[in-house]
């Protein structure tokens, strides 16, 4: 039996049901269970009834998905503390499966996954995805919502212009059009082409860079397939650590070599900007420069630019605030923000579809949002008053904004607080 709150991921070959790997919960599900989970889906598929999800009491959830008729991914969540309610948990798991599949493509390329020639070799190769997949499964990693929102987590620097110039110049010098600067695993600036990558790819590359920089090496050269852009041809991802917490990377072809780029280019472009980078690092998890005023009773916020597919999120716990609830920890704030985002998205707001896999698969996922289609009028804003905090979400043509405030803020003031905060951020950062 799964523990509460843990999620287990099962990967099998779709045609033969050979298990490829399982990740997640500390205790693996018995093989018989894995077999039956796969079996019911296969049986249903044969009868023309495609099983997509299942829910049990206590918030447990099972989601099936087959990718390219070759790989079957099953996510089993034990419910419990992390369990959102019915629709929410499902959309989280659906998204997880899409991300896992994209991860596998990113690392191994689509060819190897679709044409299953040698299963044993595939099993071995898949091990290289594990650290990335584990990152996705891990609930705890704070401050990064990209895998959920499919919008790149960004950090708004106090002074972006020199950084932008540096990234553009650096990428050009490295014979690449795709360059990006990360601070604390969030994108600070990137070349224009980088933003043209599919949002999901950007998010996955962010995750990849985070895992690579967590490994501690100063630089690396990593082959990646782009799940949407080039699922069959690999590119090189060059990553250089500029400062602890600040990384720059480029996607490039065969040239230049890692050695050459590291010795010649990094110093030339980035050493003059060390101080600017330090100021970026100082922004830290707040993601917004100090010039943006935030009300003291704001607990957390998530701002998504729907056009550029970028997001800014932050949690501010001011312990000295007299009204702040001491019981609300930082991690709980992140969790609440995440849950509120999923809640709003699965019920009221539209989430930009990320095309993943074949077209029929994407239509299938759109079926799960049937509740949203039941509204005859368009939901614009919503709020939720719970015991721990008050949450407000609003959607405009360009933005989606989610705000958590202290329970002490009167409910009728929520809307004003939210719109005001949004206006403040936009005017200060032009996000």
């Amino acid at each position, binding site marked *: 039996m799964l523990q509460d709150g843990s999620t287990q991921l099962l990967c099998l070959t779709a045609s033969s049901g050979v298990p490829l790997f399982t990740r997640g919960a500390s205790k693996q599900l018995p093989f018989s269970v894995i077999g039956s989970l796969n079996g*019911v889906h296969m049986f249903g598929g044969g*009868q023309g009834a495609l099983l997509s999800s299942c829910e049990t009491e206590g918030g447990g959830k099972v989601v099936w998905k087959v990718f390219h008729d070759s790989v079957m991914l099953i996510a089993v969540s034990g419910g419990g503390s992390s369990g959102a309610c019915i629709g929410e948990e499902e959309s989280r798991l659906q998204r997880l499966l899409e991300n896992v599949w994209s991860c596998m493509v990113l690392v191994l390329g689509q060819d190897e996954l679709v044409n299953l020639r040698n299963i044993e070799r595939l099993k071995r190769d898949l091990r290289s995805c594990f650290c990335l997949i584990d990152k996705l499964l891990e609930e705890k990693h704070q401050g990064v919502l990209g895998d959920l929102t499919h919008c790149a987590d960004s950090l708004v620097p106090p002074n972006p212009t020199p950084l932008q110039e540096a990234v553009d110049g650096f990428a050009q010098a490295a014979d690449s059009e795709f360059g990006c600067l990360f601070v604390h695993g969030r994108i600070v600036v990137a070349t224009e082409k980088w933003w043209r990558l599919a949002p999901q790819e950007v998010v996955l590359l962010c995750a990849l860079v985070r895992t690579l920089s967590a490994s501690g090496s100063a630089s690396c050269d990593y082959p990646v397939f782009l799940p949407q852009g080039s699922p069959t041809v690999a590119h090189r991802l060059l990553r250089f650590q500029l400062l602890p917490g600040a990384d720059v990377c480029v996607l490039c072809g065969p040239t230049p070599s890692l050695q050459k780029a590291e010795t010649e280019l990094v110093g030339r472009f980035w050493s003059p900007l060390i101080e600017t980078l330090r100021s970026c690092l100082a922004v830290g998890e707040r993601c917004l420069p100090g010039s943006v005023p935030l009300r003291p009773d704001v607990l957390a916020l998530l701002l998504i630019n729907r056009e550029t597919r970028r997001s800014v999120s932050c949690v501010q716990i001011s312990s000295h605030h007299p009204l702040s609830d001491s019981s609300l920890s930082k991690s709980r704030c992140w969790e609440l923000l995440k849950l509120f985002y999923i809640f709003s998205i699965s019920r009221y707001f539209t989430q930009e579809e990320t095309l993943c896999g074949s077209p029929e698969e994407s239509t299938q996922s759109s079926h799960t949002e049937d509740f949203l289609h039941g509204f005859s009028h368009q939901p614009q804003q919503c709020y939720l008053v719970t015991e721990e905090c008050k949450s407000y979400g609003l959607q405009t043509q360009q933005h989606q904004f989610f705000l958590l405030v202290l329970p002490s803020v009167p409910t009728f003031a929520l809307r004003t607080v939210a719109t005001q905060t949004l206006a403040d951020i936009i005017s200060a950062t032009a996000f």
Partner: protein
Amino acid sequence: MFNLIDGNSFSNNLEDFDSIRSVLLYSDLEPEWLDDIQKNGELFYLELSEGEEEAALARVAASQCLSTNHVRFSEKEAEVITEQAGTQRRGSRRKGEPALKKLARILGRKRRPSQRKGGKDGSRGKATPSPPASILKTQPGQQQGVAVQQRRRLKEACVYLNPKRLASSPTPLCERGGLLEALLGVVHRPAWTGGQTDRGAVRQDGRLTVHGLIPNSPAIKCGQILIGDVLLAVDDVDVSPENIERVLSCIPGPTQVRLLFLKPLEFSLFGYKAQKMKASPPVSQLVRLLWGEDTAELQMAIGHIPHIVMYLSLKLDSSSLQEEEEILYQYPVSEASSQLKGVRGIFLTLCDMLENVTGGHIISSSLLLGKHLVHVGYWKEHNNLLVVGLPAERVPLLSLQTVVGDVVRTLKVMYGSLNSAFCKPDHAPRLDHFFCLFFQQLIQPWRLREGAPPPLPDVSGSLFLDGLPAVRWLTLPPEIKMEVDTVLSDFESSDFGEMSEDFFGLRRLYVILGSCLFYKSYLIANHLPKEDLLDVCLYCQHFCLLPLASEQRVGQLVIWREVFPQQRASGGPAPGFSQPQGRHFLLIVGLRHFMQCVLLEAGGCASPALGSPGPDCVYVDQVKATLLQLNTLEAAMEERLNVPSAPCLSCADWFLPAATTRDRLDSLASSSPVLSKLAGAIRGSPSGHRGRSLFGEKSRRSSPQRSLSDSGSEGPMDAGSGLPAAPGLSPHSTPDSGRRIGGRRDSLGSDGSGGSGGLFKMPRMKHPNPFYLGTLKKTLTDRETEEMYNTTKLTSGTENTLFHYVLMETVQGIFIAPTHREVAQLSGSIHPQLICNFHHCCLSIRAAFQQSLPARGCRAADRSQRSGWGLGPVKEHGVLFQCKPENWTDQKKPAPTMTYWVIGRMLLEPVPQEFYVCFHDSVPEVPVEMAFRLSFGLGL
């Protein structure tokens, strides 16, 4: 059947009783429903009132369609008594009932046994209902002597006959034509051969040829009987000139008869088509469905939508080799459902396996069948599993659990447990009927209502309102409420006549545990504990009894069955107190728009019930008497329904920028002469008819502008509410649009100082209403908005911005929402959409409340370990919507928009309540907040 009692024996305690009760008690008339009682004592008897039936027939005549239903008509009890007292005098004792019933059947065969047994007679096949066996029938072979080639020239016509009119009409019975002319209106002249030119004229001697039709007779009204037709049979009884009078004289009371005609040759082709054409139902599909007719057609209409209910056994018994033995029950048998049936292995496996994986029973799963997403709900009981598959577009996942929970509870109330419901083979036809109703209500509810399907069926509305653990309540003025309660209490005290113990010195048969009273689908009085009320209400909801009583005047409805109230079955709330071990019976009696549900207990204090007792006449008649007594209050109820309750509502359409509204109204007015005249009248004579309340209102408001606008809007309103008095105008649309015209015009015409403020609501508040949220909210909104918003709105001043609301009292199990009539009066094009949207949103809000609540209810034990919803307990949840008018064609200007909130709030203290409101965005936040506080502080 009534007991023949020597009136002297208890004369002294009768004097002070109601005359109705006495009449009923002493009448030894055999009740109409007696023949419908099932072997197991159950009864489902429904007949429509005469007015309904005639209206239905008029519709048939208008559409030239065939009708096949058979209805019995009710008369006032008193009339029946006088008529039949002589023929049916016979005595009986309670214990002798079964024997007497048999006797009654032999002797009293004057009425056809109806097929309106709600599918309980078991004879209703899955494909087509068998034709009713007519008592009038003299020979088994139908249409003997009719040549095969003649069959295509046959036509049927249904005619409503009322022999009573015959007696009452001053004109003497036409000697020559006899009953055929007098009753039916068909002129037949046996000797009349002159002028007949067709070939068949020679052979016409032995035939009943229609030679003429009498004006205003049933025959001519039905519109299908033509001169030259030959009457062959009346209700499957072959007729000839010799026996026609006898046959017609056998018709005991008002009824509908089916006439079979042979048409002259030249029309045969049309006739064939007409016969083939499927009849549009003269009575609503719902009634037909309740009678157990015609389920095949309804079921066929949804055959392509995958839906299924299965009761599967989880026990594997390898010894027997029967195929599909694990399916204990299944419905329906259609192509789409067979696919779901084919994958039942998935359901069984998942149910068995997932418990070990995630530590909880499976609740639901989603399947993609072709293009249809199907949600499957599960309910496990002992070793069996109930699986309900429903299309996702009708039942979102959020409400699936409620739907399945409700149907399980209904089954448990009706049968005690799922096992006893499904495992008895003779229950199958009833379950078929049960689930037919279930799926029809969920998948195509509009088919059950009358009229054309609405452009936008409010599926979520019924899901939400039916899913609430509460009954729709109608607040009544205190004096009426008291009267109703007194009448009910009188009845429940059961010290009347045979119901009292000292009458016979015997233990009474049943103890009345309580009763509740509905008027037009609103609960108006309840003397039942909450859980019992919910049980009863679930039953009524399932059989659509509530809408039935509101849409159609029910001639008579008698339902009797054993029930298993869930609270009582599970041992009761208080530890140490054990419920008396008794059996419970539900008696529902409906008369016209009233319906009373009585919960009876046998055993315990009363004598234990043996076998499966049928309805006891004494109790039925006492309920009927109560209802008749209450009938005097109908006018007051209607008045209450016509007066919008205190939280006055606005129509969403009024809030779109005025230009569009005015344009639309102008076009409306120009297209309809009546309307434009009305609009002109409103503008021209502001001092038209004026409601009583207006004077009170005027004293409060001194501005001449106000009173002008008041009368402008009030005039047509009163015409609307005084509906019976002024039948000339179409009751709903005209006054309403007139009101809107008046209101809008005035508010637009005012120069900004006056305003259309309380225009739509204040004058109509006639009753002090216990639900005074609106008053408070109103005053608040008025005062505050006047202070805060002076010039911002197009129509300056304050407008009522409340669109809709639902308030649920969890403890009492009731909820209050605007009445259907109130909503209908608001009409508008956007407003219905808005209400749909409101309900849809409420589904989501309530789901959030439910999921955050500590688990309660029947699955509490299983849920206790659940650590709660991720977001924590939700107290309040609101969503802001934006709407645009549909079909906005103006390319230059962007469509005007209107934004409104839907907010739900749950309160656990001081009394658990849930409150859902929908109001316009322009309300400042402060008064909303205060209105919430106040309403919750005060309660009902």
